[in-house]
């Protein structure tokens, strides 16, 4: 009988299927992972602590840098929290602009996931197709906000810029185009036998596990739990749109793939309706004081980001800076299940499992 020894293997700190810097310490027995220990914090910038010395408007560019693949939702969560505390009514036009930009961001974020996930498990060309379409979204967001990834677009009370001329029409044209491309994506990847064998049954967990680990977003919905804050706790004007919540049974990487692909379709539905209902005129900024001071007290709000439930807690003592600011960053919570998923897995499945969780390290480390 051949005796083997357990070995410690260091993975990273670098970019194995993550967007940011992540390190894993694995205890392996041959090719089987006995124990996995994630080491995080390489991208920690102390956003929450920095925010304690910043005015609310100054914090907005910092939120861009948490989940930089979908910065619009991060912008929104902060201004939404402050607006809730100050009880500000947002003009309709601003709300529509927010929804359109957030949903575009959601599609862009899922496209990055789709492209890079397939790249990680060995398919190169989907990445190029995904980034071709993502570039169109980024260009549109660049046109409206002036930034490609770090938009700094939302303001307490509304948005910074109105839509430039012809921008809404561009979004309108993009929706059918993207639908057509999505069909192509399914043709290219979804039916691919190699891909199916690679992801089916990989990284499987149950509904109870998902709930116990406080997973959210696609990671929760892939186990059949129908929970989407846009539907269940409508914020902004999401109650005006007709769309479905993407749910899939199975709880494996294959189910997560389907949930995200379906979510792109649903986002396109929302975009289509939002563009249709877009008010032809109106303010983009509510009447707010020049220096924003949240009233004394606290507030917690949560919204659905592409990665899950993002929350923001503000404790204010009435000054122009928050006393304490806390973000519930979905990637951080979703990553917690990784050691459990990796235990007893073959090392070849490591990247397929990690990638399917869809984390952004800027958000994990905060």
């Amino acid at each position, binding site marked *: 009988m051949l005796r083997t020894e357990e070995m410690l293997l260091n993975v990273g700190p670098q970019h194995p299927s993550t967007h940011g810097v992540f390190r894993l310490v694995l205890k392996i027995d041959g090719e089987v992972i006995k124990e996995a220990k994630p080491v995080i914090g390489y991208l920690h910038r102390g956003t929450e602590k920095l925010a304690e010395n910043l005015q609310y408007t100054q914090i*907005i560019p910092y939120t861009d840098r948490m989940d930089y693949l979908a910065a619009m939702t991060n912008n929104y969560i902060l201004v939404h929290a402050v607006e809730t505390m100050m009880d500000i009514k947002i003009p309709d036009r601003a709300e529509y602009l927010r929804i359109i930009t957030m949903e575009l961001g959601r599609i862009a974020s899922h496209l990055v996931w789709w492209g890079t996930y397939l790249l990680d498990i060995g398919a190169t060309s989907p990445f190029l197709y995904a980034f071709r379409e993502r570039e169109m979204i980024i260009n549109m967001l*660049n*046109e409206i906000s002036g930034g490609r990834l770090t938009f700094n677009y939302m303001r307490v009370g509304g948005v*910074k810029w*109105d839509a430039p001329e012809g921008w809404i029409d561009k979004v309108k044209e993009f929706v059918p185009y993207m639908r057509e491309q999505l069909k192509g994506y399914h043709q*290219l*990847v979804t039916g691919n036998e190699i891909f199916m064998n690679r992801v089916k049954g990989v990284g499987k967990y149950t509904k109870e596990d998902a709930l116990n680990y406080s997973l959210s977003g696609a990671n929760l919905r892939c186990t059949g739990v129908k929970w989407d804050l846009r539907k269940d706790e409508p914020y902004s004007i999401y109650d005006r749109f007709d769309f479905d919540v993407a749910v899939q049974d199975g709880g494996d990487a294959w189910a997560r793939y389907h949930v995200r692909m379906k979510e792109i379709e649903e986002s396109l539905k929302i975009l289509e309706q939002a563009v249709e209902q877009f008010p032809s005129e109106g303010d983009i900024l509510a009447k707010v004081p020049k220096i924003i001071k949240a009233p004394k007290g606290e507030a917690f709000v949560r919204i659905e980001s592409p990665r899950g439930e993002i929350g923001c807690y503000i404790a204010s003592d009435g000054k122009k800076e928050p006393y304490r600011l806390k973000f519930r960053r979905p990637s951080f919570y979703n990553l917690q299940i990784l050691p459990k998923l990796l235990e007893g897995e073959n090392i070849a499945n490591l990247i397929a499992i990690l990638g399917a969780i869809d984390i952004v390290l800027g958000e994990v480390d905060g």
Partner: protein
Amino acid sequence: MLGLAKGLSYTLKNLTRKKVTYDYPNEPLPLPDRFRGIQKFYPEKCIVCNQCANICPTDCIQLTGKKHPDPAKKGKIIDAYDINFEICILCDLCTEVCPTEAIIMTNNFELAEYSRDELFKNLEWLDENDENIRKVNKA
């Protein structure tokens, strides 16, 4: 095998599509007017109100003013204006608060330098940075 063949047909269909890449840096990148690039500064417009330095989230703007040389005129004029591009995040808040539009974003984004010291840009440099200036500065 059918799935693989289907995928291949998609790839073949895309062979004839127009290419979407740019020949950067041989050709300049097309950027929208609102793009946030390195700031242009107009010393003659500045009233030394300090709002840009106060709103800056990373504290990268340093400025000092001096008395107006013409004793008949009130107020201050700008003496020194430095932006530290080691920490500037081009967030656009300085141009947003400027009451006289003395500081404006341009479409220039190439900031690579051989030494970190060169990332300190002073008043003269920011004044000379006058290409591709944003046309509409406020919504």
